């Protein structure tokens, strides 16, 4: 549900929070691994968009197989966060994750 590919694309967007607002930190997470179809073309297309530091931080080098794309596939598409929250490293805003759907809505006073 929240896969690491999504986590890699989301930044804190609260009012005035423009620096150091990425990557969001996971906490209290319930992790799940679910197999997914391997699609090398999709991954190749996505490579230039990945923020590597964020990905490494999030995945803590979980896997050690040889093929880079396979590893990426596993990390990006098969690692799901079902429950927990994501916290902005800058402003501390907490985005809760429930049943795999992160709630990125901001309250009125947080809209910039």
């Amino acid at each position, binding site marked *: 549900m929240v896969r690491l590919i999504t986590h890699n*694309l*989301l930044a804190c967007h609260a009012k005035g929070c423009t620096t150091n607002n990425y990557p969001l930190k996971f906490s209290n997470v319930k992790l799940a691994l679910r197999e997914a179809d391997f699609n090398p*073309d*999709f991954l190749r297309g*996505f490579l230039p*968009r990945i923020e590597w530091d964020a990905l490494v931080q999030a995945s803590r080098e979980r896997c050690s197989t040889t093929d880079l794309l396979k590893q990426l596939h596993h990390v990006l598409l098969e690692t799901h966060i079902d429950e927990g929250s994501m916290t902005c490293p800058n402003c501390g805003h907490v985005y809760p994750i429930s049943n*795999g*759907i992160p709630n*990125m809505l901001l*309250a009125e006073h947080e809209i910039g």
Partner: protein
Amino acid sequence: MPPRQYLVVFAQTHEDFRVPELRSVAELYGFPLTIPHDFDKSRPFGVLALDQEEHARFLARRCILIKAVYEFYASGRSYEELHEQNRSSRNLWEKYIPETSFKFVVNGYNHSISKARQREVIEDFSYMGFMGKIDLVSPEITMGYFEEYRDRDIHGTTSQKHEGAAVFREAFFGRLLEQGSARSLIKMFDVKKRQYFGNTSMEAEISLLMANQTLASPGKLIYDPFIGTGSLAYTTAHFGAFVFGSDIDGRQMRGKETKPGILRAATQYGVRERILDLCTFDITRNPWRCGGLFDCDHHRSSVVPPIRLPHRNPARKRHHTGICDQLRHPFAREDQPYLPPTKPYELSALAADLVVLARYLLNPGGRLVFFLPTVIDEYKELDLDSMLCDGMEVVRELAAGFRCLITIRKSTSVAYPPPTFDPQVAHGGSGSSGIDHDGEDASPASPVHAHVPAHRDFREKYFQGFKPKKPSSEEFDT
């Protein structure tokens, strides 16, 4: 190899979508397609010239509106004309003479031809001299003969047993190449049989037609920022694309059970793994880390996302209040105690903002596909200019009912900043709003401002029953 002609038999619905769909599928598979000048989209039969047989098969497999594709042998306004042409196409069918098993099918458009008359028609083709076995169950080739009538009175009737030759507008003859296989998807995606749907779910056929406009195919990444109950996610994912969805109202995506409704329906269709993720947020306050995200396919440099304007429910055209007031579900969830207040969002401003947003989020060559609710009688192509911005070009637009399906392509590789969604800017002008986003366009805008797009203030027009506005000063008050 010179182009061959193929007879396309269309389903009898959504005739406005026929040509746009043919064009999209041709673009998806990367082959040239010329629609002949005399192509009449209101007729159920069309003859297309294609370079390769394979291209005709691609059309049959992907076009929702195609019932079957035939290798074209002859057409005529009379039996004589048809048979004469068929004799001159001998080189196309003579290879089937010696020993190919075959069957003949005789069809009338919106009219049944009696068995006795069918046999007569078939016997008229005896000069072809097929020597092979007649096999009605599994023939090697199927020959199709179609009559199209001008007289609407005979529609829905069956011809009498001894009624002779019919007066028809045109008759067509050819060899069956492939039955359209995409049409059965309409049944498969039937909303009534879906595990999860809502009052905003889109009917299966339209969601499939829209999926074809997005050129959904394996490896592409599609984003639906108004995913709702996921109608578009299932069809685009079925064609192999990855889909990311977001909505301001998480309850729409979740439904009542623990497992989100969209994922339940996606599991039913076997596309669960291609729904990348779902997210709750307001698209005008989005958390995307950067632009240029949605694209993917390097081979066919085209792509992407149906940013969908909900088309049925005018209340949803407001920014958000509309949704909340309207869908006060009995199952608001604990994790979303906060429902953001919302503001009305004038439709032409929303449309213009979406185009700017798409320019930010799309990769070069990516596509924006959406339904624009509008007043069709007043609709003009000029309306689109009011929402376009630099670097975005209209691929095609077609008006159908109270809405217009618009496909826009990102034609620039320049990276643009994200849109501001500033209501002051959006509502500042007296006319079209999108222009105001680009400073350089704003100054010479007076002639553009003179044109008020038909979809402007659609909500108000809708509730007033589309009565023509009295020439009053109220336009200048806003």
